[in-house]
Protein backbone atom coordinates (compact mmCIF):
# COMPACT_ATOMS: atom_id res chain seq x y z
CA UNK A 1 0.00 0.00 0.00
CA UNK A 2 0.96 3.61 0.03
CA UNK A 3 3.91 4.80 2.04
CA UNK A 4 3.02 6.35 5.38
CA UNK A 5 4.18 9.94 5.22
CA UNK A 6 3.60 12.43 8.03
CA UNK A 7 4.24 16.11 8.58
CA UNK A 8 6.46 16.79 11.58
CA UNK A 9 6.97 20.05 13.42
CA UNK A 10 10.41 20.18 14.95
CA UNK A 11 10.91 22.03 18.23
CA UNK A 12 13.53 22.00 20.95
CA UNK A 13 17.27 21.77 20.72
CA UNK A 14 19.01 20.67 17.56
CA UNK A 15 20.70 17.90 19.51
CA UNK A 16 17.47 16.34 20.68
CA UNK A 17 14.56 17.85 18.76
CA UNK A 18 10.95 16.95 19.35
CA UNK A 19 9.26 15.94 16.10
CA UNK A 20 5.53 16.37 16.64
CA UNK A 21 3.21 14.71 14.14
CA UNK A 22 0.90 17.51 12.96
CA UNK A 23 -0.52 15.64 9.97
CA UNK A 24 -4.04 15.52 11.33
CA UNK A 25 -4.09 18.53 13.59
CA UNK A 26 -3.44 22.25 13.56
CA UNK A 27 -0.37 23.86 15.05
CA UNK A 28 0.01 27.39 16.35
CA UNK A 29 2.81 29.80 15.58
CA UNK A 30 3.21 31.69 18.84
CA UNK A 31 6.06 33.54 20.52
CA UNK A 32 7.44 30.30 21.88
CA UNK A 33 9.39 27.30 20.65
CA UNK A 34 6.60 24.80 21.20
CA UNK A 35 3.78 23.10 19.37
CA UNK A 36 0.24 23.63 20.57
CA UNK A 37 -3.17 23.40 18.97
CA UNK A 38 -4.75 26.14 21.06
CA UNK A 39 -2.11 27.76 23.24
CA UNK A 40 -2.53 31.45 24.01
CA UNK A 41 -0.10 32.00 26.89
CA UNK A 42 2.78 33.11 24.69
CA UNK A 43 1.08 35.11 22.00
CA UNK A 44 2.96 37.54 19.77
CA UNK A 45 2.74 41.08 21.04
CA UNK A 46 1.49 43.73 18.65
CA UNK A 47 4.40 46.15 18.24
CA UNK A 48 4.10 49.88 18.71
CA UNK A 49 6.43 50.27 15.75
CA UNK A 50 8.06 47.93 13.28
CA UNK A 51 7.23 44.22 13.18
CA UNK A 52 7.08 41.41 15.68
CA UNK A 53 7.34 37.75 14.73
CA UNK A 54 6.31 34.33 15.84
CA UNK A 55 9.10 31.95 16.64
CA UNK A 56 9.78 30.30 13.31
CA UNK A 57 8.09 26.98 12.67
CA UNK A 58 10.25 24.21 11.17
CA UNK A 59 8.26 21.49 9.38
CA UNK A 60 9.50 18.48 7.48
CA UNK A 61 8.03 15.32 6.00
CA UNK A 62 8.79 11.95 7.53
CA UNK A 63 8.45 8.57 5.86
CA UNK A 64 7.19 6.36 8.67
CA UNK A 65 6.60 3.21 6.59
CA UNK A 66 7.34 2.20 3.02
CA UNK A 67 7.50 -0.99 0.97
CA UNK A 68 9.57 -0.56 -2.15
CA UNK A 69 9.44 2.57 -4.26
CA UNK A 70 10.34 6.16 -3.53
CA UNK A 71 8.72 9.27 -2.10
CA UNK A 72 9.77 12.42 -3.94
CA UNK A 73 8.54 15.44 -5.93
CA UNK A 74 7.61 17.39 -2.80
CA UNK A 75 5.62 20.59 -3.05
CA UNK A 76 4.25 23.02 -0.48
CA UNK A 77 1.64 25.69 -0.99
CA UNK A 78 -1.14 27.85 0.43
CA UNK A 79 -4.52 28.84 -0.98
CA UNK A 80 -2.95 32.12 -2.09
CA UNK A 81 -5.16 34.30 0.09
CA UNK A 82 -4.11 35.84 3.36
CA UNK A 83 -6.85 35.06 5.85
CA UNK A 84 -4.76 35.79 8.92
CA UNK A 85 -6.14 39.27 9.36
CA UNK A 86 -5.12 42.90 9.09
CA UNK A 87 -1.45 43.55 9.69
CA UNK A 88 -0.54 39.86 9.86
CA UNK A 89 1.59 38.05 7.30
CA UNK A 90 3.25 34.72 6.75
CA UNK A 91 6.75 34.25 5.35
CA UNK A 92 8.33 30.98 4.30
CA UNK A 93 11.67 29.58 3.17
CA UNK A 94 13.28 26.19 2.76
CA UNK A 95 16.57 25.00 4.11
CA UNK A 96 19.55 24.72 1.78
CA UNK A 97 22.51 22.48 1.15
CA UNK A 98 22.33 18.70 1.02
CA UNK A 99 18.94 17.22 1.82
CA UNK A 100 20.73 14.47 3.73
CA UNK A 101 22.08 17.04 6.15
CA UNK A 102 19.28 19.61 6.09
CA UNK A 103 19.80 21.89 9.03
CA UNK A 104 17.28 22.24 11.78
CA UNK A 105 17.85 25.45 13.73
CA UNK A 106 15.91 25.90 16.92
CA UNK A 107 13.67 28.95 16.89
CA UNK A 108 14.79 31.76 19.16
CA UNK A 109 13.46 35.06 20.40
CA UNK A 110 11.81 36.55 23.46
CA UNK A 111 9.16 34.16 24.65
CA UNK A 112 5.79 35.85 24.94
CA UNK A 113 6.86 38.85 22.90
CA UNK A 114 8.49 38.14 19.54
CA UNK A 115 10.59 35.58 17.76
CA UNK A 116 13.83 36.30 15.97
CA UNK A 117 13.16 37.31 12.39
CA UNK A 118 13.63 34.46 9.93
CA UNK A 119 16.44 35.48 7.62
CA UNK A 120 19.35 33.73 5.98
CA UNK A 121 21.68 35.47 8.45
CA UNK A 122 19.67 34.43 11.49
CA UNK A 123 19.15 30.77 10.56
CA UNK A 124 21.72 28.05 11.21
CA UNK A 125 25.16 28.91 9.90
CA UNK A 126 23.95 32.27 8.68
CA UNK A 127 24.87 31.67 5.06
CA UNK A 128 23.76 28.44 3.40
CA UNK A 129 21.49 26.69 5.90
CA UNK A 130 18.51 28.59 4.51
CA UNK A 131 18.25 28.29 0.73
CA UNK A 132 17.21 31.90 0.24
CA UNK A 133 15.44 34.86 1.75
CA UNK A 134 11.92 34.13 3.00
CA UNK A 135 9.02 35.21 0.82
CA UNK A 136 5.33 35.66 1.44
CA UNK A 137 3.81 32.20 1.72
CA UNK A 138 0.81 33.39 -0.27
CA UNK A 139 2.88 33.60 -3.44
CA UNK A 140 2.96 29.80 -3.37
CA UNK A 141 -0.22 28.17 -4.64
CA UNK A 142 -1.15 24.76 -6.04
CA UNK A 143 -0.38 26.03 -9.53
CA UNK A 144 2.84 27.73 -8.48
CA UNK A 145 4.10 25.85 -5.43
CA UNK A 146 7.27 25.92 -3.43
CA UNK A 147 9.41 23.04 -4.67
CA UNK A 148 11.02 21.17 -1.81
CA UNK A 149 14.08 19.07 -2.70
CA UNK A 150 14.05 15.56 -1.30
CA UNK A 151 13.71 11.88 -2.15
CA UNK A 152 13.64 8.83 0.08
CA UNK A 153 13.20 5.09 -0.45
CA UNK A 154 13.39 4.13 3.21
CA UNK A 155 11.94 5.34 6.46
CA UNK A 156 13.24 8.56 8.00
CA UNK A 157 13.17 12.31 7.66
CA UNK A 158 12.49 13.42 4.11
CA UNK A 159 13.70 16.45 2.21
CA UNK A 160 14.44 19.98 3.19
CA UNK A 161 12.63 21.79 5.99
CA UNK A 162 9.86 24.20 5.19
CA UNK A 163 10.31 27.00 7.72
CA UNK A 164 7.66 29.63 8.15
CA UNK A 165 6.97 32.57 10.42
CA UNK A 166 4.03 34.82 11.24
CA UNK A 167 4.69 38.56 11.01
CA UNK A 168 2.69 41.03 13.09
CA UNK A 169 2.58 44.71 12.28
CA UNK A 170 1.27 47.69 14.21
CA UNK A 171 -2.14 47.51 12.56
CA UNK A 172 -2.84 43.98 13.78
CA UNK A 173 -5.85 43.38 16.00
CA UNK A 174 -5.66 41.67 19.40
CA UNK A 175 -6.80 38.07 19.63
CA UNK A 176 -6.23 34.89 17.67
CA UNK A 177 -5.58 35.38 13.97
CA UNK A 178 -7.48 33.58 11.29
CA UNK A 179 -6.16 30.17 10.28
CA UNK A 180 -4.36 29.07 7.16
CA UNK A 181 -4.11 25.71 5.44
CA UNK A 182 -0.55 24.82 4.45
CA UNK A 183 -0.45 21.83 2.15
CA UNK A 184 2.32 19.36 1.42
CA UNK A 185 2.10 17.26 -1.73
CA UNK A 186 4.36 14.37 -2.75
CA UNK A 187 4.67 11.44 -5.14
CA UNK A 188 4.97 7.86 -4.00
CA UNK A 189 5.81 4.75 -6.03
CA UNK A 190 5.75 2.28 -3.16
CA UNK A 191 3.55 -0.76 -3.04
Amino acid sequence: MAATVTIRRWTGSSGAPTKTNITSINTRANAEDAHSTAGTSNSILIPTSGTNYSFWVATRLSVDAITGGTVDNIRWYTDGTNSLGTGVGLNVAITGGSVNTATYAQATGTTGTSGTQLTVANYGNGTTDLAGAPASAFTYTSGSPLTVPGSLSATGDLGQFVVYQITVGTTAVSGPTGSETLTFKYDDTSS
Partner: protein
Amino acid sequence: MGTLTWKAVYRDGFVLRQIDPDGQKNVYADIDQERLSAFELWDGDDCKLVMPFEAGERLIWRRRTAVIPGQGDETVHIVGRRRPVAEFLEVSSVACIFEADGRIISADSFVPEHEWLYPPSGPQGQEVGNG
Protein backbone atom coordinates in the same frame (compact mmCIF):
# COMPACT_ATOMS: atom_id res chain seq x y z
CA MET B 1 -14.18 4.48 -3.78
CA GLY B 2 -11.51 2.72 -1.81
CA THR B 3 -7.80 2.43 -2.31
CA LEU B 4 -6.83 1.71 -5.90
CA THR B 5 -4.33 -1.01 -6.75
CA TRP B 6 -2.69 -1.73 -10.08
CA LYS B 7 -2.39 -4.72 -12.38
CA ALA B 8 0.20 -4.98 -15.14
CA VAL B 9 -1.00 -7.19 -17.99
CA TYR B 10 1.74 -8.67 -20.15
CA ARG B 11 1.57 -9.67 -23.82
CA ASP B 12 1.63 -13.34 -22.92
CA GLY B 13 -1.39 -12.92 -20.65
CA PHE B 14 0.49 -12.97 -17.38
CA VAL B 15 -0.84 -10.50 -14.84
CA LEU B 16 1.43 -8.91 -12.24
CA ARG B 17 -0.66 -7.57 -9.39
CA GLN B 18 0.39 -4.88 -6.95
CA ILE B 19 -0.98 -7.18 -4.28
CA ASP B 20 -1.23 -10.88 -5.08
CA PRO B 21 -4.18 -12.92 -3.78
CA ASP B 22 -1.85 -14.37 -1.13
CA GLY B 23 -0.98 -10.85 0.07
CA GLN B 24 2.46 -10.73 -1.51
CA LYS B 25 3.27 -7.21 -2.68
CA ASN B 26 4.93 -6.26 -5.94
CA VAL B 27 6.43 -2.85 -6.54
CA TYR B 28 6.38 -0.57 -9.53
CA ALA B 29 9.99 -1.37 -10.35
CA ASP B 30 9.01 -5.05 -10.68
CA ILE B 31 6.94 -4.32 -13.80
CA ASP B 32 8.65 -5.64 -16.93
CA GLN B 33 7.92 -2.76 -19.27
CA GLU B 34 9.16 -4.69 -22.32
CA ARG B 35 6.27 -7.13 -21.88
CA LEU B 36 3.57 -4.66 -20.89
CA SER B 37 0.36 -4.63 -22.91
CA ALA B 38 -1.95 -2.86 -20.44
CA PHE B 39 -1.83 -1.15 -17.07
CA GLU B 40 -5.00 -1.21 -15.01
CA LEU B 41 -6.21 0.42 -11.81
CA TRP B 42 -8.74 -1.48 -9.74
CA ASP B 43 -11.02 -0.59 -6.85
CA GLY B 44 -11.59 -4.05 -5.37
CA ASP B 45 -13.32 -5.99 -8.15
CA ASP B 46 -14.07 -2.91 -10.26
CA CYS B 47 -11.67 -1.86 -12.98
CA LYS B 48 -11.50 1.94 -13.04
CA LEU B 49 -8.82 2.70 -15.63
CA VAL B 50 -7.09 0.82 -18.44
CA MET B 51 -4.15 2.19 -20.39
CA PRO B 52 -2.98 0.03 -23.31
CA PHE B 53 0.66 -0.16 -24.38
CA GLU B 54 2.37 -1.01 -27.62
CA ALA B 55 5.85 -2.42 -27.94
CA GLY B 56 8.50 0.13 -27.02
CA GLU B 57 6.17 2.31 -24.99
CA ARG B 58 6.88 2.91 -21.33
CA LEU B 59 4.67 3.31 -18.31
CA ILE B 60 4.55 6.20 -15.88
CA TRP B 61 2.77 5.52 -12.60
CA ARG B 62 2.85 7.13 -9.23
CA ARG B 63 0.53 7.92 -6.39
CA ARG B 64 0.31 11.68 -5.75
CA THR B 65 -0.94 12.79 -2.34
CA ALA B 66 -1.82 16.15 -0.88
CA VAL B 67 -1.60 16.22 2.91
CA ILE B 68 -3.77 18.95 4.34
CA PRO B 69 -3.27 19.17 8.12
CA GLY B 70 -6.51 18.77 9.99
CA GLN B 71 -8.44 18.04 6.81
CA GLY B 72 -7.05 14.68 5.67
CA ASP B 73 -5.38 13.49 2.51
CA GLU B 74 -6.35 13.63 -1.15
CA THR B 75 -4.74 11.05 -3.42
CA VAL B 76 -4.67 10.60 -7.16
CA HIS B 77 -2.92 8.01 -9.30
CA ILE B 78 -0.91 9.39 -12.19
CA VAL B 79 -0.84 7.00 -15.15
CA GLY B 80 1.00 7.89 -18.32
CA ARG B 81 2.56 6.51 -21.44
CA ARG B 82 5.83 7.46 -23.10
CA ARG B 83 6.48 6.42 -26.67
CA PRO B 84 9.76 6.34 -28.55
CA VAL B 85 10.35 9.34 -30.83
CA ALA B 86 13.76 9.26 -32.50
CA GLU B 87 16.07 8.26 -29.64
CA PHE B 88 13.88 9.82 -26.95
CA LEU B 89 10.79 8.81 -25.04
CA GLU B 90 8.03 11.39 -25.31
CA VAL B 91 4.96 11.51 -23.13
CA SER B 92 1.95 10.74 -25.33
CA SER B 93 -0.79 10.36 -22.77
CA VAL B 94 -1.28 11.02 -19.08
CA ALA B 95 -4.22 10.79 -16.74
CA CYS B 96 -4.94 11.13 -13.09
CA ILE B 97 -7.73 9.35 -11.28
CA PHE B 98 -8.95 10.47 -7.88
CA GLU B 99 -9.23 7.79 -5.24
CA ALA B 100 -12.06 9.65 -3.49
CA ASP B 101 -14.58 9.66 -6.32
CA GLY B 102 -13.05 8.05 -9.41
CA ARG B 103 -12.92 11.33 -11.31
CA ILE B 104 -10.42 11.29 -14.17
CA ILE B 105 -8.47 14.14 -15.76
CA SER B 106 -6.49 13.33 -18.90
CA ALA B 107 -4.15 15.17 -21.25
CA ASP B 108 -1.69 14.51 -24.06
CA SER B 109 1.21 15.43 -21.84
CA PHE B 110 2.02 16.72 -18.38
CA VAL B 111 0.76 20.19 -17.56
CA PRO B 112 3.35 21.96 -15.38
CA GLU B 113 0.89 24.51 -13.99
CA HIS B 114 -1.85 22.00 -13.26
CA GLU B 115 -2.69 21.19 -9.67
CA TRP B 116 -2.37 17.44 -10.29
CA LEU B 117 -1.04 16.75 -13.79
CA TYR B 118 2.39 18.27 -13.30
CA PRO B 119 5.40 16.13 -14.22
CA PRO B 120 7.24 13.74 -11.94
CA SER B 121 10.71 14.67 -10.78
CA GLY B 122 13.40 14.62 -13.44
CA PRO B 123 13.97 16.41 -16.72
CA GLN B 124 10.88 16.76 -18.88
CA GLY B 125 8.93 14.50 -16.58
CA GLN B 126 11.09 11.49 -17.23
CA GLU B 127 10.97 8.84 -14.61
CA VAL B 128 14.13 8.59 -12.61
CA GLY B 129 15.29 5.00 -12.27
CA ASN B 130 12.15 3.49 -13.72
CA GLY B 131 11.70 2.35 -17.29
